């Protein structure tokens, strides 16, 4: 089993925004989804999920409603706001540029000064 990675600073917010963008979802489901989608590579400390959700809600990127789940319990469902959509697009674009740049650097062939 490959080693798990801690999330780089700030990417948790991006991941949450992306998952919420797929449709209204409650906190536990977000945790599950993160777990599954990252194929267990990314270690998301569950404790930091909720503070992150509340922070994003406080900044107006997420909105929340209390609704019943399919099991009939009341849960807090998060959805993306228009402001959150813009934030997600901006952060995603930034992330892509960063990873491209990093891969470019990594693609340099070694010892090739000639």
């Amino acid at each position: 089993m490959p080693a798990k990675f801690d999330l780089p600073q700030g990417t948790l917010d991006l991941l949450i925004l992306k998952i919420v963008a797929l449709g209204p979802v409650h906190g536990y489901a977000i945790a599950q989804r993160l777990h599954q989608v990252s194929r267990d590579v990314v270690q998301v400390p569950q404790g930091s999920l909720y503070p992150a959700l509340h922070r994003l809600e406080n900044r107006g990127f997420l909105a929340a409603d209390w609704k019943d789940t399919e099991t009939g319990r009341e849960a807090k469902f998060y959805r993306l706001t228009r402001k959150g959509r813009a934030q997600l697009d901006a952060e995603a674009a930034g992330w892509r540029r960063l990873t491209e740049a990093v891969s470019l650097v990594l693609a340099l062939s070694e010892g090739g000064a000639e």
Partner: protein
Amino acid sequence: MTWWYRLTHLRKMEDQLHKELAFHIDELARDLVERGHSPAEARRLARIELGGPEQVKEECRDARGTRWVEDCFQDVRYAIRTLRQRPGFAAVALLSLALGTGATTVMFSLIDGVMLKPFAYRDPARLLRLWERTDFNTSWGNLWEFTYPDYLECKRGVPALETAVWYYHQGTLAAPGAAEYEDGVYVSPDLFPLLGVKAALGRTFLPEEDRPGAQPVALIGDRLWQRRFGRRPDALGERLVFDGQPYTIVGVMPANFRLEDDAFEVITPIGRMSGGILHERRWHGFHVWGRLRAGASLARAQEELGLVARRLAQAYPESNRARTFIAESLKPDAGDAKSTLLLLLGAVSLVLLIACANIASLLLARAISRERELAMRAALGASRGRLARQCLTESAVLAIAGGALGVILAAIGMRPFALLWPGGLPRVQEVQLSWRVLLFALGVSLASGLLFGLAPALRAPARYLERALRSRSRSLAGGTHLLHRAFVISEIAIAVVLLVSAGLLGRTLLRLSALDPGVDIHNVLTARTSLSPSTLADPERTRAAWKDLLEQARHVAGVESAAMVDTVPMREGSNPVNYSTVPANVDDGRQYPIVLANSASPDYFKVTRIPLLRGRYLTEDDRRGTQSVAVIDEVMAHQAFPGRDPIGQPLWLGIAPDPAIVVGVVGHVRQWGLAADDQSKWRAQLYYPFAQVPDTLVHRWSDLMSIVVRTSANPLNFVEPLRKAIRGATGDQVLYEVRTFEYLASASLARQRFLVLLFGIFAGLALLLASIGIYGVLAYLTSQRVPEIGVRMALGATAPAVMRMVLGQSMIMILAGIVLGAAGSWLPTRSLQHLVEGVRAVEPATFAAMIAVLAIAALFASYLPARRASRIDPIKALRQE
């Protein structure tokens, strides 16, 4: 969701947070059960996975962004709870803070009303005061009031300014009702629009009423309206007779109308002023005020004034040579009330500082005894900043509560205190609880809260958590002993400063009270006196009228002698003139020595009992047509004729072209009051007979005259008989400003007495607070040392030895405080010498006495804890360990 919503729905937010996390754990546990864990195990794992629920909640709360407000509420509630647990401490702290901030606020409200608040005119920032300034310096300085012709030229020649003029005009109001002397003023009609002041009733003057021969009209002041007309609106159109002239009332001024600090009861147009003064190019007595027109700058106005001045200097070299006009902004002038106020503000601030030091050391002691609690909370995750903030909140709650109480005290006390001011506080009607005052009180409270909250708060970050938690009953005092001592030392130092200042003032008052005023002040009554206006037209009639008046006064039963004089000792007003011992025109604008010239009737010396040193007094034979004579005092004799016999010497004065011959030398009189005379600029005195005043000056001199009578019993019993006796044939001769000499002598020390009283109170408070501080700190320090003292006693230390040890500890603090305070009192004693008349350098005896008072109080305060320490039972003390 706004932050306001979040704050107002805290409970709901908390419930939802709890529900959300519970849901998470439930779901996770359910999944784990599905994967084969037992339900109990599943819940346990779920909890571990999520992390400590309380910590997660804390982080979520932090993420809300309203956290600091919530914390603040919580801290405030906590602070109030802890304060209520110790009502004794809270009461002492609140009371000393309330007194401290209250007194500071009162002083500031006076400073605000008297010095800071702009005049109650429209747009006061654009108002200007105009002066004439000469290039040369005369004995009077180089700033002059305007002449009326110069004012008219400036009005026409300076487009940048609107200008208006006024001129003092006291006189007898003869009708309606009984004759009384009133303050009046001549004004130009445009003064009212210039200031933005309207009549409260009726109207102000029309431009056409401002010329000779116009219908005579007058405005009256609010007080006169109240007294003479009972505030009836039909006072408009009534007639009044002021200074011998009939007027029709056209308006009533609002109650708060003042020019400079003076209220006026009769206001008349300046253009009807008689006597030719309006054409005099050398009569400098007109107050000219201006307002910058829209768009004009002070610099432009100044330039235009300069142009007018240059033109006038060419046209009238006689009067206007080397003379220019200047403008400065119109600002309240508080006179010597200003320095008194600043002194008092300084003194109360020191008292407040002691109170703060006291509270700080009490809070610090408590912070240390709470060390374990704080360490526990730090161990449970409270951050350093959070704990420090909580400590500060507690201080802030204390400070604001104390400040609020202080503002209440100030609101109650400021008016009575302002009215208590000796000689009346200028602009006292402006003293109010304004927003500036409230802001000041808030600032002072918060600053003092920070001052006494800082030390305990900085301690709060528990650095040696482990040690703090492990140490059991004993708390970690360590380095704070030094801080405690520093508090005590600074309290003592401040108390020394205040005590020495109070002692210096007290000593000064004692010395000044013992001074000889130079006149016999017992049973002497004086009053300004105004002749019937009908007698003033002709100098001979005026002289006769004075003679009659004095004769009538002498006939009142119980009056031993009566005289007249223009300037009365120790009362406001003096008549300094240039003099020369060689032939000269002393009014030619050059510098001459100055003498205070008093014009008097011969009996003046009999009434005042000024001692004759050489030659003779003035007599009835010194009249118009005989040789002009003068009597001088010893100071003048020494100043003008050093080493010579002054008798028979001529003196050239500004009063008449011929010299006056000195015929006698008398004792010096403390003209400027007991306090001020020794240091005053002009002390030389001279007396000349009123009978020899030239015809042209008799009218003007008559306006200044007072009568002085010696009575056989309490002079105040003779006021009414005298009033009746001198009323005159037309019934319009009046006495005003009636005073006894004893009153004048005592009033000349009123400022010193007032300062002694207040500094005495402040020094007493400082002493009390410092003693409480010493007691508190020593009690605390010895309680910290109980086990140590127990060991010492078990090893054979005797009770007196323990007591000596504790007392020795306090002696060091007291000595250090005294040394610091003694050094620190240099500044206040210097400023007192500078600002208060009659104060000299501190005498060592005064200094020693004050230090002794402090040392005794401080030692007494340390005795109680020392005795308690010496009675410690070693067995109990060791058991406590």
